[in-house]
């Protein structure tokens, strides 16, 4: 009998277990089918092409209530991505800063940073999001406070207005409009694509410059000065593009009920961004601190013995090694932050969960299809992030031979 043969036992049991699992899955699917029949519904994603009928306040792409549910879901998806990228950036900056400062010799600042890390790490992120939402809505002046001669509030540098409906900052607009690039459902502005292309090109040019400098250093032992060349390469082309396109700043101004013009960072966005960014920053601070502490003191001493200055020791010896310890947990923090963007509904941020997983599910009542699609999209985002970060991780990983 197969069960008693050592060679086949494992396979037999596995096949048996797999069979049970498949039976379970079949049972679930059968239930779904019979439930759907009982409710008189069909399984279809047609609702995505129906008119949504609701408005979304934060629209990275063109959208209004006459467009489809699919389009609304796309808007939500883009909002999720924007929040995730901005949140990760804020969390990284804060986390690295706090992680390094917590190791500082300055007693008062290390205590202050410890306080920040502990208080944010130990209180649920949902509470922080609600608190930031409440702070924005309750403590900031209403737009009406900016009105009239006896205004109680005024704009910072006449350019930034902080109100209880969000923060208005100047927007960059162009005189010359190159039009739009139509890419299926999204139509990015060619002006901005050009700017991004120039920035990327500058970055590559700068990298080439540094590689060249390193080569010169390796050959001659003297590193050519590159900082002013770098600045030129990074700033001049972008500046030139901005001037050529006739870039100018549009300042927000009070019109009607609200400020108009400029970029409106809504309360919901700010609450999510600050809440998630600062919360995750506390975790990243601990990761960074742990990473730096994990490098043994001998490394620093060896670097000093070689005559490296403290700054170079940090940059050339400690950080490259610390990065290896830091990156894997950092990836999971980025993933956590991205998944936590789904709390947006708590403050009314119109992310994927609030559009596709909220209003859209609720209006045509297609919760089965909607939730499955929602989970699939989140899964795809997560897998993409962890895939990208794993590629990076394997590049910096210690090459063991």
């Amino acid at each position: 009998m197969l069960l008693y043969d050592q060679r086949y036992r494992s396979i037999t049991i596995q096949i048996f277990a797999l069979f049970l699992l498949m039976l379970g899955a079949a049972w679930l699917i059968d239930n779904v089918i019979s439930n759907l029949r009982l409710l008189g519904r069909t399984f279809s994603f047609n609702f995505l092409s129906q008119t949504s009928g609701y408005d979304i306040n934060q629209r990275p792409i063109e959208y209004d209530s006459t467009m489809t549910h699919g389009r609304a879901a796309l808007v939500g998806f883009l909002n999720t991505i924007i929040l995730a990228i901005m949140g990760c950036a804020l969390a990284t900056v804060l986390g690295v800063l706090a992680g390094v400062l917590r190791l500082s010799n300055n007693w008062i600042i290390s205590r202050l940073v410890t306080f920040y890390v502990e208080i944010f790490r130990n209180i649920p992120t949902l509470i922080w999001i609600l608190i930031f939402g409440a702070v924005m809505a309750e403590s900031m002046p209403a737009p009406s406070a900016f009105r009239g001669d006896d205004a109680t509030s005024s704009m910072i540098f006449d350019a930034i207005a902080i109100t209880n409906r969000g923060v208005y900052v100047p927007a960059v607009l162009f005189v010359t409009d190159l039009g739009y690039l139509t890419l299926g459902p999204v139509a990015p502005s060619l002006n901005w694509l050009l700017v991004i292309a120039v920035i990327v090109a500058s970055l590559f040019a700068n990298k080439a410059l540094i590689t060249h400098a390193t080569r010169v250093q390796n050959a001659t032992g003297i590193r050519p000065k590159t900082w002013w060349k770098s600045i030129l390469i990074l700033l001049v082309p972008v500046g030139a593009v901005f001037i050529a396109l006739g870039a100018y700043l549009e300042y927000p101004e009070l019109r009607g009920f609200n400020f108009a013009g400029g970029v409106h960072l809504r309360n919901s966005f700010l609450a999510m961004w600050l809440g998630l960014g600062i919360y995750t920053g506390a975790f990243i601070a601990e990761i960074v601190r742990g990473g730096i502490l994990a490098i043994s003191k001998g490394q620093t001493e060896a670097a000093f013995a070689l005559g490296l200055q403290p700054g170079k020791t940090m940059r050339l010896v400690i950080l490259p090694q610390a990065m290896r310890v830091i990156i894997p947990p950092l990836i999971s923090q980025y993933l956590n932050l991205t998944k936590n963007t789904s709390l947006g509904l708590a403050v009314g941020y119109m992310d994927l969960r609030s559009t596709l997983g909220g209003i859209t599910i609720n209006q045509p009542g297609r919760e089965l299809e909607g939730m499955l699609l929602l989970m699939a999209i989140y899964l795809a985002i997560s897998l993409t992030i962890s895939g990208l970060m794993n590629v990076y991780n394997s590049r910096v990983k210690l090459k063991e031979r």
Partner: protein
Amino acid sequence: MSDTHANTVAYVRNEMLPPSDAPRSQTGAVKWMLENLFSGWANTAMTLISLLVIWWALSSVGPWLLNSVWTAGSLAECRAILDGATGACFSVITNRWHQLLFGFYPPHLYWRPVLTLVLLFVALAPVLFPALPRKLLVLSALYPFVGYHLLWGGSVWFPISVALGFVAGFVAYKLLLKVNNLLAIFGAILGPVLWWMFVAGQIDSALSSALPLGLEFVRSDRFGGFLISLIIGISGISLSLPIGILLALGRQSDMVFLKPVCVLVIEFIRGVPLITLLFNDSLLLNYFLPPGPAFDLILRVIIMVTLFASAYMAEVIRGGLAALPKGQYEAADALGLDYWKAQRLIIMPQALKISIPGIVNTFIGLFKDTTLVVFIGLLDPIGLSNAIRADTNWNGIYWELFIFIGALFFIFCFGMSRYSMYLERKLKTDHR
């Protein structure tokens, strides 16, 4: 020589000077401050900025906290007492803290959740302190049933008949072990399942009608506040540990068919937000179960949270397994232990020990994530704070509630994280 000096050279000292104090800047508080706060211009600037931040925070929060009102019956009353001055209105907490802690649990039964929590520490003691006799582990094993009975009440025979299922499994295992190892494992799985399906119900109803013993039944919808967070958090973490171990072993193994399944489950659960899983509980679960009324929402949430935590637990334990030197596995093989014996006696005790800080961290994360149940309409502390804010008396209050809820979470999580750091330090010595 000294004699000559003493007599001949008048300007040479011939006795020791009394030791003088070190310069001010090199001692005591001044030295400490110079070294730690003002060692350079950058440091000085940071110190000043920090002081400014602290002063700003204290001056804006201090008066508000010091002026707190603790006795008013409504926000309007509070404002009347404050009479225009800034001040917190913590009366909302004194008024409603029972609700924030226990939800709508019947007040005369508050002793039951409290006793459950106290018993939790008793049950955890044998797990946490290896010095205690091993026999006490039986208490830990019994705890889930005692805890269930204390919290929900009802007939005492129900948890007993469920618990007997495990006994049935154990007996089946012991009996069949004499026949065959594999058969015994099947018996251990099938025994309880058959017991629960066919015997438990009868025994329960027979015994309850013959000898109606038990506590007053409390329905799930009376549960709320921190009670619900604790129930979900603690049951989620304790149930997820065994599942997590199995998933981790499956992922580490070389089983052709089951390994991909484990990887798929772990990656799927880790890839989606908890909130979508919770929404499945309230929106989709009914599609996946046979037509008919769904079972209790808290139970559903516990199941979902357990699944969620299992995936994270599996990764923590996989880390622990990976950290074990390969020699341990080889040593176990060399002793001729089979897979399960090797796991039970050699691998798992060490791997789990290494993973304890990770497990505690997962628990803290899970406990904080219990706040998400507010989205599916369970009245956890945040849900209750919404309900309180909807009340006419307390319309417009929020800081005080957030501070109270945040403080409770902080105390709990901070305590846990300190404990995990203590464990980390304690365990470190074993490996270096």
